[in-house]
């Protein structure tokens, strides 16, 4: 059983919703980002999304754009991101780690080498924002060889038939984007999210995480109701910048219990 499967099994037993936390690797520098990730994990993040910074993050709002920019200014790159994953893996053997980013740095690195190095570093899955299902064959082949899960994104605009097609090859969990928009800018209507998640349940048996626009425990609890996990990104970065990351993680963790 994979770490992701085990985590969702555990959550089911505990009767909790999972907390998926996103932080950009190298923001504001390598050491501080590692410290933030460790703090987030120590305070109840169940699945860690490690953001691989990219120069042109076209699906991200101002917060993650700025985080990527700071990371790149500090010289962060794919190699150092993998080294960071490797250090986290040594101390957190059971926590699923998802590499989250854009295609070009991976493409430049080389898919085969990248997947091999992610697996070696202890990563579990990849989520590539600008790689839709139709373009993903080549990368997915290499991921499969290395035992990595391809986390699919489903949007409010994705028709049901298309969702079925995408989800037939997916692994790990499904990431449902709750709002039409970029990260961290809009909040979702819980009733609306519930309808979409229920529709997705007819397409897959995988656990469903919902994200984009969750900033507080209250919101997490509301949208998390229908789902298996809630993803929080921009709000964690903002909180970390204000020295209240731990408080927010505690709040979210409590709200999902």
């Amino acid at each position, binding site marked *: 059983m994979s770490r992701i499967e085990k985590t969702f099994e555990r959550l089911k037993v505990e009767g909790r919703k999972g907390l998926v936390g996103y932080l950009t690797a190298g923001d504001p520098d390598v050491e501080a980002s590692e410290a933030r990730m460790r703090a987030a994990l120590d305070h109840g993040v169940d699945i860690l999304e490690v953001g691989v910074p990219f120069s042109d993050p076209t699906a991200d709002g101002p917060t993650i754009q700025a985080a990527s920019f700071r990371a790149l200014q500090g010289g962060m790159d794919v190699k150092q991101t993998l080294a960071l994953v490797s250090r986290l893996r040594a101390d957190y053997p059971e926590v699923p780690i998802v590499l989250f980013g854009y295609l*070009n740095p991976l493409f430049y*690195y080389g898919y085969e080498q990248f997947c091999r190095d992610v697996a070696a570093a202890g990563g579990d899955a990849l989520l590539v924002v600008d*790689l839709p299902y139709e373009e993903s064959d080549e990368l997915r082949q290499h991921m499969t060889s290395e035992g990595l899960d391809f986390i699919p994104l489903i*949007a409010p605009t994705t028709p049901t038939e298309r969702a079925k097609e995408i989800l037939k090859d997916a692994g790990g969990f499904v990431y449902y984007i709750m709002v039409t*928009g970029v990260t961290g800018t809009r909040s979702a209507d819980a009733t609306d999210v519930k309808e979409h998640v229920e529709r997705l349940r007819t397409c897959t048996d995988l656990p469903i995480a919902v994200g984009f626009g969750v900033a507080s425990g209250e919101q997490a609890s509301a949208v998390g109701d229908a789902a298996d996990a809630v993803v929080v990104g921009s709000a964690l970065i903002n909180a970390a910048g204000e020295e209240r990351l731990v408080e927010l993680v505690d709040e979210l963790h409590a709200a999902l219990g």
Partner: protein
Amino acid sequence: MQKTDPNEMGHFGIYGGRYVAETLMPVLKEVAAAYEAAKADPTFDAEFRRLLTDYVGRPSPLYLAERLTASYGGAKVYLKREDLNHTGAHKVNNTLGQALLAKRMGKKRLMAETGAGQHGVATATAAALFGMECIVYMGEEDIRRQMPNVKRMELLGAEVVPVSSGTRTLKDAMSEALRAWVTFVESTFYVIGTVAGPHPYPVMVRDFQSVIGVEAREQILEKEGVFPDLVLACVGGGSNAAGIFYPFIEDEGVELVGVEAGGYGLDTGQHAASIVGGSVGVLHGTKTYVLQDDKGQIQNAHSISAGLDYPGVGPEHALWADLDRVSYCAVTDDEAMESFYELTLKEGIIPALESSHAVAEAKKRAPAMGSDTVIIVNLSGRGDKDVDAVIEMGAGDE
């Protein structure tokens, strides 16, 4: 060589495709399906042709630049006068086509990115014509250097949104437009200004711009009785070049050369020559040649001309380059400026700084070609928008 067309997924060989967030995939498929249906509908084409004739003023003349030809002392130089189009550049050919498609799809709001402002003006113009709302994303640096076009867009009723991320130029404007499209995907039609971006934009924009090459091909046969020896066009994203090249692709004797922006010179690293000085990558929804560092991060482009200041290029150009059907070269800021002044003084035509790059390449090549040979330069736009910037640069030299 046969004409190149993408497969159903928008791949031109290994290039092109759709590298966007899942949120946009359904709408891209809708746009592609609507475009296929429109192409098959004679009333769509008739309406497009009517606008090109009566509204844009097509066909644009193919003008023999005699004084320029005499000064170069070689090949006859013809200028395809896209600068004489309504709004002053080739961009309007495409925006009218896309606005007609938007209307067909029932969209009431157009959105665009712009560098030099020509595409923004052309989109704002189409929006006014069709009674649609218009919002244009433009980098703060470009707003500064192309102020006349900002004023024009505002007069036309468009909202110009300044983009302050990155280098505050075309690349960042396009990133911001893609973000905005994700947000307003239900209501808004995104009018991309060049042959880049996700499928179907590269092929759709090329098709709308192909009127340039179709006309030039007929006009030169009428005037000279032969095909041109050489066709030159500047390449940023590459829409004016794709428009004039595509109809000549099967004419083997016609040499096609795309002129990229060499900025301060290729060896300085400060340029916008994605094919000549870049490598394969993925940017703004398409796989193509891009400017990137050794970590796969997109690099900042530099060009004196805001319209060429982009670190990527249309995927069909990437394929044409690999197939050696079109060759690509680069012209520096200084060479483009020199040709800007020369064309202005010799012919009384003030060219856009973008188009001045293509003129500069003609200046290099014409002298070595015989007087019985023919060059067509695509004069993609006029330089009114550049007057302030050119004067400012001239003042800086003193």
